């Protein structure tokens, strides 16, 4: 997917100035509430018209204020999953799912495929008004997919849901992207939610895009790093817990480093790795560590770096306390 955005939109007292150029197939838009993330999504979908600028998706110009080009939302082929599922209350679940299906757009995936992927079979005959929040969101996701969009936008698809329901949706989002090869943009104020789908990020604050890069590129930038650390920056680690493989998230300050496999520590899990980068962020230093399976981020003090003699290329052992491991899947 190639998305090029350079737009300006004034809405009441709020101004959005966004400039994005992205070639990735999955993109996370991250920023605090009220930063303009949703407005950005509405602009891309065609639900809001910018005052000026330019918008292009895979070579199609969707908006160009200079040449007076404006493609209305129903002709853009961009699907949206909203925070509030927005199912049509006068239709059954099945009819909602089929709402965007047309004869021309069969292909990539069938109705049966989506029903199976999102585990919707038991819901088909039920009224959408009787579905739970998580079920509604799954139906909304299926409905958007069955319209066969070329790009799927997801605007805070799990923010209204509690932690348990979130776990019903997030794995599906990753699955959709992985199995259907559909370009996705996920908008969230919750960084870990985004990181589970993609590490390619756009940071939005006060109506401005204040950073766009991979997670690794962004952690080297002081402002972006601070913003992300406040919002739950974490790296993902594969561990074996009670003989079972588990994928888990750990925050940078929850990883301890040692230069040898220390015995008799209370931290239950450990992994060897190699330091690939040390990034000085004032009081602490952010350590990027490559293990066999993943790249980890750990906070460490300058004193410890000196005492342990750590430098780029040094082998280290990473220790995780059991309580710090936030397991997923």
């Amino acid at each position, binding site marked *: 997917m190639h998305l090029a955005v350079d737009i300006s939109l004034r809405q009441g007292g709020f101004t959005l100035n966004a400039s994005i150029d992205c070639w990735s197939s999955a993109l996370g838009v991250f920023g605090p509430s009220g930063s303009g993330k949703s407005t950005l999504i509405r602009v891309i*979908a*065609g*639900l809001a018209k910018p005052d000026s600028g330019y918008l292009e998706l895979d070579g199609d110009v969707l908006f160009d204020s200079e040449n007076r080009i404006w493609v*209305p*939302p*129903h*002709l*853009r*082929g*961009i*699907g*949206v999953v*909203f925070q*509030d599922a*927005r199912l*049509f*209350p*006068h*239709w*059954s679940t099945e*009819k909602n799912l089929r*709402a*965007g299906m*047309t004869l021309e757009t069969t292909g990539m995936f069938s109705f049966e495929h989506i029903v199976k992927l999102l585990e919707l079979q038991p819901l088909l005959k039920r*009224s959408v*008004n*009787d579905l739970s929040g998580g079920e509604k969101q799954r139906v909304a996701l299926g*409905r*958007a997919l069955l*319209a066969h969009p070329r790009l799927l936008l997801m605007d805070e698809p799990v923010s209204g849901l509690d932690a348990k329901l979130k776990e019903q949706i997030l794995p599906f989002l990753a699955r959709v992207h992985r199995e259907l090869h559909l370009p996705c943009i996920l908008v969230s104020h919750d960084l870990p939610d985004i990181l589970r789908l993609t590490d390619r990020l756009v940071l939005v604050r006060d109506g401005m895009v204040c950073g766009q890069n991979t997670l690794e590129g962004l952690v080297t930038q002081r402002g972006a790093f601070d913003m992300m650390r406040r919002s739950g920056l974490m790296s993902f680690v594969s561990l074996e817990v009670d003989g079972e493989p588990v994928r888990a998230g750990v925050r940078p300050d929850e990883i301890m480093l040692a230069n040898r496999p220390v015995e008799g520590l209370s931290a239950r899990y450990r992994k060897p790795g190699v330091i690939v980068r040390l990034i000085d962020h004032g009081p602490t230093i952010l350590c990027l560590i490559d293990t066999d399976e993943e790249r980890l981020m750990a906070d460490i003090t300058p004193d410890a770096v000196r005492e342990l003699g750590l430098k780029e290329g040094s082998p280290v052992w990473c220790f995780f306390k059991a309580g710090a491991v936030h397991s997923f899947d």
Partner: protein
Amino acid sequence: MKSISPAEWTALLLSAKVAFGAVAAVTLPGVLLGWLLARKNFYGKVLVESLVYAPLVMPPVVTGYLLLVLCGRNGPVGGWLGRTFGWQLIFTWQGAALASAVMALPLMVRSVRLAVELVDRRLEEAASVLGYSPWRIFLNITLPLARSGIFAGLLLAFARSLGEFGATITFAGNIQGVTQTLPLAIYSALQMPGGEAAAARLSVLSLLLSLMALGFSEWLARRAKTGRSTHAPCR
């Protein structure tokens, strides 16, 4: 009390015919105008609004008079209809239906407008990103979700037509068997010496017709409510 005379039957049937004719005439413009006023901002909106709602606040006789000027034999609309199609509205039951429709339109528009305003615009947005054109959104999302308001508007229009007097008598006249609806027949009966009994009978008929309309609308409303989850309107 004497039984209902053939002339009274005629008035009853004519009333029903005029009311149904008025409802038929008012449906499409009422729905479109209600939607337009609820959803769109355009140049001259206040003027359209004022014209639609005017019969609600003007004396009905004035509305009838304006219709006479516009649609009479020598009026711009009436003259054109006569020359082109050989149609005549004045002194016909179609004319009575038109007068009733004009009087009923503001009630219909108001009801539709309120119902459309209550339809969640976010659902219309959701439909547009599923590939629905504005016209498909209107037919498949907005109208079905506003349908109880549309039914209510149609009923109001029907009831208003049954009771219409001033505009009808001014524009279509009071011709027995042609334009003399129940209210006009009651008025005529009361003008005649000894017509009180006939007036009473006609009033009872009028009341029955109104109650039937009310019952029908209740039935429709109940069906719309219970059918909400299982019954899906066709696409």
